[in-house]
């Protein structure tokens, strides 16, 4: 016999129906078409770049790298570029994170400009605040992040009324010494 939370007995038909839904979900992973479409819109891998730390720079990493997305989970991930108008990624940038509990973590960009933080390394309690540095160049994000774990979730290209454009390190190349871009081959 099955009772619901109010103590009422559920009918056999209803139980069967619920069990059927559960079984169907288990088999199909209860696909979310909106989510699936968002992932499909990212397209395929760039030829010559295998899935891994260097792939898909500039894309919203956590769409896939989440429990829902099915890939290894990231608690925060993104790509850093040299300048606002540049599509050149920049490596060895420290991505500094402080969360609402004042816990801190520093990640570093690789040669594709990508960085990622796994939940085992650091599971921030949102909101979080972010800053970048490489050498003497420091750049802090003006606003906190309340929930979005992919930089590109908000910082998509091109810059428009609902996006500030991609994340970059150098605001003014005249005042800030230009640093080498990427050694990716």
């Amino acid at each position, binding site marked *: 016999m099955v009772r619901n939370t109010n103590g009422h007995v559920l009918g056999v038909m209803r139980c069967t129906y619920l069990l059927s839904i559960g079984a169907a979900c288990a088999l199909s992973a209860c696909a979310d078409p909106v989510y699936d479409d968002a992932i499909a819109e990212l397209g395929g891998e760039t030829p010559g770049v295998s899935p891994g730390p260097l792939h898909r720079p500039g894309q919203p990493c956590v769409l896939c790298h989440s429990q829902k997305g099915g890939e290894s989970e990231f608690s925060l991930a993104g790509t850093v570029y040299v300048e606002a108008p540049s599509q050149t990624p920049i490596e060895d940038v420290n991505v500094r994170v402080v969360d609402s509990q004042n816990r801190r973590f520093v990640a570093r960009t690789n040669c594709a400009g990508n960085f990622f933080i796994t939940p085992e390394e650091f599971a921030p309690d949102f909101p979080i605040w972010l800053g970048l540095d490489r050498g003497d160049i420091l750049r802090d994000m003006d606003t906190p992040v309340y929930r979005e774990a992919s930089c590109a979730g*908000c910082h998509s290209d091109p810059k428009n009324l609902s996006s500030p454009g991609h994340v970059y390190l150098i605001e003014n190349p005249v005042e800030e010494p230009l640093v080498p871009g990427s050694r990716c081959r």
Partner: protein
Amino acid sequence: MSMTARRTLCFFLWLGLSASGCGSAEPAAGHLTEAQLPSRDEFPVVAHAMQLRCGTLDCHGQVGRNLRLYGVGGLRLSTPESPIVDSVFDPTTVPELDASYQSTIGLEPEALWRVRDQRASPTQLSLVRKIRGIEKHKGGQLAHEGDALDRCLVLWLTADADPDSCEQVIAAPRPEVD
């Protein structure tokens, strides 16, 4: 507030009252009532505080949200009269304040009327319940009853704005990430 916004609110009030069979303290069905709305003149400082706490691009700085906030640091609204040239650095414009104001007061017109005119508890408003963490809010609990953000928003919604509280929210230091 524009005439359009005023008429819209009056219509919603009429609709809500008609449907709910209101008591004698409330206007008769079919009659438009001029509602006392939160001040548009005092809204800029409230909007600035809300923009910092609620209006980021990953929260209410999105066109798909019922509470949709516009301004610097978030979603921008470009109009022919006040075009946005640089979406990151241009200061918040008057049309953006107008849009944020209308979005905020238009969320629950009937509940807002009860809170303003009938002195009902401000927790009748989802906005208040959500920032206080009384109701599920994906952005979490943002305020405690009586703190600066709570006073900034709730006093503006229910009575007279408290700009000092809003200024406290605006001036709150961000954590050093160094």
